């Protein structure tokens, strides 16, 4: 503390102080007249004084150096910044403006950065900075006692965690203060001992590392995941967990997320911002949106509130939250009706025919309805297997079929069946050859067939509740398609199914069709959508027509920027599919300026291949334990015990019995057992022990495991998450804020994972709602985790609940690299100052830990064999394990590892060599090559170059291997081993791909074949990446990146069943949920499903307050938080309202009698929050916002409802499993890390809100 001057009230401007300076009044009065009396020389006098008076500001604008860095937060902005340093102190930051240009006819990428980034340096010296290692005092005391009794630290750790009293003593202290400073040595010793003990006693898959969005700081992320990969720990995903992963993307495109860079917005000539508040969430690039308007691009926003971006819109479609799927269907209806059927727009039809599954044949299945009538429903894709003349082809069940204009079914190139196997070489492409598929069987002779299609907009049976917000049951609509016989099968095309689904009547076909424009009952029409969305039918029609007309005029330059406002719903995949269908039917995908543009936590590790080698230690062993985080926490935090969501409640009326009588939790267990999804911890036995048991039994490990499972001697851990054998034991957080931000169902984390105090309000499930396939223990487990560690540079709810808090370097204190899909550049981080106090980089922390663990392993672990159960992977032949996505009951399915159950892989782990491996590049990269998205890159030359650049290990178990023992060397490895940053690998990859596709591709990278982006290059200037087969777009010739340009222009198939973009999905579970085709599903009815309040309902139940009102509870991103994690920045708080807020409409405020800035409390079954109200008419009635990352660390009082500290924004949400997210093992429905998996959706919640006592207690 250096200052003794306090800005006390006596000199504040609110007091008209007589003389604020040290002058007295008389002298001041003298100057009052100075210039008047000295008129002769007043100018000169004036000037002299003035020039000297300038000096202060000139001085302040001085600095010793300016250092390039960026921010590793998960905003995905990836902005290059100038960090100013004076006297060894970081003073402020400003954006770099030296991005490579974009060409003469569009704006450049300068500057890039937002106010949140500009405020970041506040953290460097802020009072919330974590400057030293800390430990929980109770644990530290136990540790010191234990060390006296057990000199070996691993034994010491055992003596604590295996003693229930001791374990409870420190776990129950989590979140209750009592952090005390410890030395790095002590902190490291505790952490390493916990790791070694857990591996030894429970197995390495009881360790978990949680870090997010690697693209934003790839080395910092990778250091930790490399450490855990080498140990065998679970690496928790983030994209699905955040609900940012749009499951529609793998479903439709067979790709995780591939989207245009922001500069490509400027190529658009019709731009919709749909649930994406670009100025707030994509601040650095918003200018492309504002500027493209000046080219005459029309801008339309779709949002429930008058959002920041609405200011820029030509039109605002004010939609009821979560009903976007209805708008998407209705727009599709207009486009199909007017442009496809009525006008026959050639551009659209040609595009659909070539690039989508529209012309592919689907068999129609007969089904008996409950009332006994027989009906037809869409079945499975017709495949070569169904055609006698093609049935003998390799992978015939994965070669899909079209109807040629000649009337014969044909098998075009490019399907999944061509992607793998000898016979597909040169044929995995979109070339039509002599095949001319018909889009509709209406072209030619046909048989009209009436189908039953599910609809989900109906009022549940058995309720007389007509409340529009209280919907979500299902019924059937009957619509006809033209069909034809192919052999035994009655078939139609996907296009015909689409027209039926969208209610577009052509020739006389049976069924119920829209009566006219005003038919509000007909699913798919604008009039119908108006009743659901609140958007005028005329506006829907007009915008749809404009969107399509523009696409026709511009050849596909209509774009939809879509965001979390539509993507965070439980049924987001259905919403997205209706939106993506629009860009598909208008020929916009793969076109610069067009297509879907999903910006929700999306990221792009552009140097993906090298990154994967480094971060997951694929250079040493394969695979690693990639885990779906939503299911991980769902089980680990016992949210499954409160859920009990009947799978039936989500099902189509046409569903089979598969979901009957089961909960969604049961579907998770099934998906895990089938190998569709990863599941760690995997078994109720140590994975190191299983291999030894197998050896003892004299069996191969996979056979042994199958045998044990069949005998019931071995079980999946997910079947009994409350068995102490199955607990996650060690969890390490870095670059994240789990407990303060992303923890959906935060209160369940407190109780079950951490053993801390909670405010859960829900009861556990009654027996009839309990999962059928899981063990129910009467006593739920609490405090499952033994060691909860966080690396951070500031205090968060996560550090407050941690046992160890390790001081991490900030983004201005380390070397690293960053990329994003918002722009095509690679940025470097560089230290403006050395990590201050005792902070260390993530890299150094994990590297050090690796060393200590290796040392302890000599005594306790040595070399062991680890059984790793891996899911069936996307982009591999695994995806052909289950023809037609057809399941048989699990009990009747033989256990075949890698086909009907997880792959069972044994990995040898020398635990004494973890550090040596951490420090060097292993041999597998060159020995086995580097697989990426279905091709393999071979880096022999690059490994040799890295040995030269980085040096080689001189001794130790990895002597001779190239070094990656510093962060810069790790960055060089990532850059050198990736096509986007190494032209040699890019061209090599394209040549490999060409063999499979038979089309020309390698020229895309030829201009850069000799280019190698080095770390030093990135320090000088942002580096433009190289077009590479790792991604689907092209930057060739300075072009803006747009997804799937390679597919559209080079006839490269999508990674799907047909090789085309899919409207139709035929996996069994998709059928059961009625999601074969794009459809509308409203937000979950939380009242019906979970007994929460009805929206709009008012009660006067609570003793402390008058009226409460039920509202929809949304958690959009906050303008004043640094993305999803940091809301404690004093600058940001000073520019907003300085604490937690809930935004609400004047109407809702009036209902509960609350005024602007008064305290309110909001609760539902999951928890309770307290905040100050912001009342604005830009909010719609019935909906409140509590912004994302509203943490509990700043100005959060205790609640009246629970008596505990108010919760975070996610205290009111909870993880829910959607079975279609769990689908795997089949074509594009196959697992990839952060590619596929249950999303931790959070937009469907409702909550009750009320004005609370204004006297708050902290």
């Amino acid at each position, binding site marked *: 503390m250096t*200052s003794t*001057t306090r*800005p006390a*009230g006596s*000199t504040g*401007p609110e007091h*008209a102080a007589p003389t*604020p300076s040290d*002058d007295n009044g008389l*002298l*001041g*009065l003298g100057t*009052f007249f100075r210039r008047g009396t000295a*008129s002769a020389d*007043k100018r000169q006098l*004036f000037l002299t*004084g*003035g020039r*000297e008076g*300038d*000096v202060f*500001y000139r001085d*302040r604008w001085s600095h010793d150096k300016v250092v390039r860095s960026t921010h590793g937060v998960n905003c995905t902005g990836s902005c290059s910044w100038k960090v100013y340093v004076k006297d060894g*102190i970081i003073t*402020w*930051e400003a954006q770099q403006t030296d991005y490579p240009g974009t060409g003469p006819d569009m*704006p*450049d990428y*300068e500057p890039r950065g937002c106010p949140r980034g*500009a405020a970041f*340096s506040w953290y460097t*010296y802020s*009072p*919330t900075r974590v400057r030293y290692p800390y430990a*929980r005092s109770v644990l530290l005391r136990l540790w010191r006692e234990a060390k006296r009794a057990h000199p070996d630290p691993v034994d010491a750790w055992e003596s604590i965690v295996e003693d229930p009293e001791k374990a409870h003593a420190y776990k129950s202290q989590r979140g*209750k*203060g009592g952090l005390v400073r410890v030395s790095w040595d002590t902190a490291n010793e505790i952490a390493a001992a916990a790791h070694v003990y857990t591996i030894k006693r429970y197995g390495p898959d009881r360790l978990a590392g949680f870090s997010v969005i690697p693209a934003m700081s790839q080395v910092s992320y990778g250091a930790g995941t490399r450490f855990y990969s080498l140990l065998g720990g679970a690496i928790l995903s983030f994209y699905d967990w955040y609900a940012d992963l749009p499951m529609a993307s793998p479903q439709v495109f067979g790709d995780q997320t591939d989207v245009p860079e922001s500069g490509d917005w400027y190529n658009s*000539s019709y731009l919709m911002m749909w649930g994406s508040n670009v100025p707030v969430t994509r601040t650095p690039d918003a*200018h492309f949106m504002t*500027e493209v*308007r000046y*080219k*005459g691009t029309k801008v339309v*926003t779709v949002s429930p509130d*008058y959002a920041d971006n609405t*200011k820029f819109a*030509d039109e*605002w479609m004010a939609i009821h939250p979560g009903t976007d799927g209805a708008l998407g269907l209705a727009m599709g209806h207009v486009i199909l009706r007017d442009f496809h059927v009525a006008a026959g727009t050639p551009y659209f039809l040609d595009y659909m025919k070539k690039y989508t599954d529209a012309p592919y044949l689907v068999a129609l299945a007969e089904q008996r309805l409950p009332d006994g009538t027989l009906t037809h429903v869409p079945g499975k894709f017709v495949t070569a297997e169904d055609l006698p003349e093609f049935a003998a082809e390799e992978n015939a069940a994965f070669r899909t079929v079209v109807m040629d204009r000649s009337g014969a079914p044909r098998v075009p190139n490019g399907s999944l069946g061509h992607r793998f196997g000898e016979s597909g070489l040169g044929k995995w492409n979109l070339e039509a050859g002599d095949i001319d598929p018909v889009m509709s069987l209406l072209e030619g002779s046909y048989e009209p067939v009436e189908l039953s299609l599910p609809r989900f907009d109906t009022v549940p049976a058995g309720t007389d509740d007509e409340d529009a917000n209280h919907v979500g049951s299902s019924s059937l609509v009957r619509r006809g398609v033209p069909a034809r016989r192919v052999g035994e099968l009655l078939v139609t095309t996907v296009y015909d199914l689409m027209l039926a689904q969208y209610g577009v009547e052509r020739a006389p076909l049976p069924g119920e069709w829209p009566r006219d424009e005003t038919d509000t009952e007909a699913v798919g029409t604008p009039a119908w959508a108006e009743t659901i969305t609140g958007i005028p039918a005329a506006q829907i029609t007009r915008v749809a027509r404009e969107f399509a007309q523009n696409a026709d005029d511009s050849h596909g330059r209509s774009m939809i920027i879509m965001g979390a406002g539509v993507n965070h719903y439980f049924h987001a995949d259905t919403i997205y599919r209706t939106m993506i269908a629009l860009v598909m039917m208008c020929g916009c995908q793969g076109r610069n300026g067009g297509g879907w543009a999903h910006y929700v936590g999306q990221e792009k590790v552009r140097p993906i291949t090298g990154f994967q080698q480094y971060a997951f230690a694929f250079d040493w062993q394969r695979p690693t334990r990639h885990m779906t985080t939503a299911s991980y926490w769902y089980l680990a935090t016992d949210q499954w015990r409160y859920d009990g969501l009947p799978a039936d409640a989500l099902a189509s009326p046409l569903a089979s019995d598969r979901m009957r009588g089961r909960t969604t939790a049961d579907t998770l267990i099934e998906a895990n057992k089938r190998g569709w999804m990863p599941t760690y911890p995997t078994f109720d036995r140590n994975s190191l022990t299983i291999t030894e048991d197998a050896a003892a039994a004299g069996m191969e490990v996979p056979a042994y495991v199958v045998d044990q499972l069949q005998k019931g001697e071995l079980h999946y851990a997910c079947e009994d998450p409350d068995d102490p054998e199955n607990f996650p034991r060690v969890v390490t957080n870095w670059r994240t804020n789990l407990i303060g931000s992303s923890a959906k169902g935060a209160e369940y984390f407190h109780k079950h994972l951490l053993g801390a105090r909670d405010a859960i309000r829900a009861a556990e499930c009654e027996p009839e709602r309990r999962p059928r396939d899981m063990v129910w223990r009467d006593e739920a487990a609490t405090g499952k985790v033994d060691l909860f560690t966080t690396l951070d540079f500031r205090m968060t*709810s996560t550090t407050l609940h941690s046992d160890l808090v390790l001081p991490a370097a900030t983004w201005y204190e380390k070397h690293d690299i960053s990329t994003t899909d918002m722009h095509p550049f690679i940025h470097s981080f560089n230290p403006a100052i050395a990590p201050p106090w005792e902070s260390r980089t993530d890299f150094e922390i994990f590297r050090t830990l690796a060393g200590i663990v290796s040392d302890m392993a000599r005594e306790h672990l040595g070399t062991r064999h680890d059984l790793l159960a891996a899911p069936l992977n996307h982009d591999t032949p695994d995806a052909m394990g289950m023809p037609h996505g057809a399941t048989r009951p699990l009990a009747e399915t033989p256990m075949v590892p890698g086909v009907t159950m997880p792959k069972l892989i044994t990995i040898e782990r020398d635990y004494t060599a973890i550090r040596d491996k951490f420090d060097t590049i292993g041999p597998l990269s060159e020995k086995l090559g580097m697989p990426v998205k279905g091709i393999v890159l071979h880096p022999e030359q690059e490994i040799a170059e890295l040995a030269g650049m980085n040096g080689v290990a001189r001794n130790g178990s990895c002597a001779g291997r190239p070094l990656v023992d510093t962060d810069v060397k790790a960055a060089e490895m990532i850059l050198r081993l990736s096509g986007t940053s190494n032209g040699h690998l890019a061209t090599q990859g394209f040549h490999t791909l060409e063999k499979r596709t038979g089309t020309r591709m390698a020229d895309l990278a030829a201009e850069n074949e000799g280019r190698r982006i080095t770390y030093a290059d990135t320090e000088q200037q942002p580096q433009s990446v190289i077009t590479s087969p790792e991604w689907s777009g092209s930057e060739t010739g300075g072009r803006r990146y747009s997804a799937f340009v390679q597919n559209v222009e080079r006839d490269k198939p999508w990674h799907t069943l047909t090789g085309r973009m899919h409207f139709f999905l035929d996996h069994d579970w998709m059928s059961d949920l009625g999601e074969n085709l794009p459809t509308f599903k409203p937000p979950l009815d939380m009242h019906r499903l979970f007994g929460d309040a009805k929206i709009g309902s008012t009660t006067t139940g609570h003793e402390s307050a008058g009226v409460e009102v039920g509202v929809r509870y949304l958690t959009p991103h906050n*303008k004043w938080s640094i993305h999803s994690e940091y809301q404690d920045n*004093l600058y940001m708080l*000073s*520019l907003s*309202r300085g604490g937690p807020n809930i935004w609400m409409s*004047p109407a809702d405020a009036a209902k509960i009698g609350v005024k602007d800035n008064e305290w309110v409390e909001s609760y539902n079954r999951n928890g309770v929050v307290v905040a100050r109200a912001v009342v*604005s*008419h830009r909010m719609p009635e019935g909906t409140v916002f509590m912004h994302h990352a509203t943490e*509990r*660390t700043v100005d959060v009082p205790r609640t009246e409802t629970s008596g*505990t500290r108010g919760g975070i924004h996610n205290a009111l949400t909870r993880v829910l499993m959607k079975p279609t997210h769990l689908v795997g093992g089949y074509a594009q429905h196959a697992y990839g890390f952060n590619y596929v998996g249950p999303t931790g959706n959070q937009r469907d919640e409702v909550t009750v809100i009320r004005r609370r006592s204004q006297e708050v207690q902290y």
Partner: protein
Amino acid sequence: MRIMAQMAMVMNLDKCIGCHTCSVTCKQAWTNRSGLEYVWFNNVETRPGLGYPRTYEDQDRWKGGWIRQPNGRIRLRGGGRLRKLATIFYNPDMPKIADYYEPWTYDYDMLLTAPADSPHVPVARPRSLITGEEMKISWSANWDDDLAGSQEIAVNDPILAKMNEKVRLEYEKTFMFYLPRICEHCLNPSCVASCPSGAMYKRVEDGIVLVDQDQCRGWRMCVSGCPYKKVYFNHRSGKAEKCTLCYPRLEEGLPTVCSETCVGRLRYLGIVLYDADRVTEAASVEDEHDLLAAQRNAFLDPHDPAVQVAAEAAGIPHDWIQAAQRSPVWRLIHDYEVALPLHPEYRTLPMVWYVPPLSPIVDEVARTGNDAEDHRVLLTALSTMRIPLEYMAELFTAGDPRPVELALRRLAAMRSYMRDINLGNPPQEEIAAAVGMTGQEVEDMYRLLAIADYDERYVIPTTHGEIGRAMAAVDPMGCSLDEPDGVGMNGPGLAAAGHAHSEADHGGSHGSGSPGGAQRVRLTLSRREDLDGFPGTPGFAGGAL
């Protein structure tokens, strides 16, 4: 003719995304010091809204700027020197801290220091940076951000109050836009004229208005005199401080911090030449609606050879004249007439101008199914836009809707005209003609508004170090009205009563012992310490280094 060069700024509000990056980078660079906790040289207001400080535009209340007297001459609205003298120890027009906001921090260190077995999860509570006491936060530098007004708060928006037509603040009719503000660096600055100490001045070479930190005596008449409330009082140093237009950067040819970091790319910096002899006249026109034209008339066309000769004769360096010709500000003000001044009715002749924002059409149009994209509709659709023309007119043209309408029509026409080019159709010259432009001009304007890169947005001539302060020999602009028989504070009106200035004026305020010097010594540390934590109270957040 007294030709002068003025560094001026245009902000295109149609592009402003309201992100406040400008505010943060400015704050970090200049005002994160004690005494200035509440100060934002650059702030961004959501309109409708109250602004910062609250209701500063209500000059009936705050008495800033000038008013025109019945005799045709202007005087400070806050009164002449006699009133200033009479109120020098108690200025009724002075905003109180609450009118800005009471700055605060949090006891962040509780997060780390909370003792074991705390009953609840530790939390950092807000504390006043003024008193150190715990507080409930009830106003901030940007309290009404994104409110789009709100029925509780915007009712006090002085602009809404002025409007004849009642604006209904309801969901279906919601509108809002953002207004970033810095010091206007006026040609006729009322702050300079208000200063009893002669500490405020307008730099001769580029017209930047500054406070001489050595001369300032902290009377704060500038604070009340400025109608934009862009002069602030440093309650620690006892001096006035204000936006310096980042002159240490401009002198090197770098744009201001707020401009360079403007991620919306909406700011333009450039030279405008003007005739200082026309300033008084321009500020004094009778009809407020004529102030815009009068100010434009005071500007000199840098492409006019006569102006160029006169400028060289006046000692304006050759490259400055060239810079004036390339000035994007001049083009937006003069060539395209899309930029307008903020509150010309204050008669200070402000030099930060604004392009007014387009806005979405209202729902009535959405319901009719008309295609608002069609240029015939676009050009007539201004009346259907959400932001009422009248609201913008009250901001930019003293209530005259015509110049605002012209600017918006030109923006709209540009969009229509460019759409054809965008889609590969032949452009329609009649669209440009409908707004009095040629197609080429429209395209040029498009490139300036949409594409202009760094060097085109900021055309900044560097200072001429080789001639030192030679330009200082030219008449430095104090207040334009500060001339014989002028009405400025430093005019001769009370000269007869004058005393010779005290020697203490010179001796006492220079050197390292002065407040300015003291600040410099502590520069680096203080810049991190002040906002980072409230200094001083043990156990309570501090940025100890």
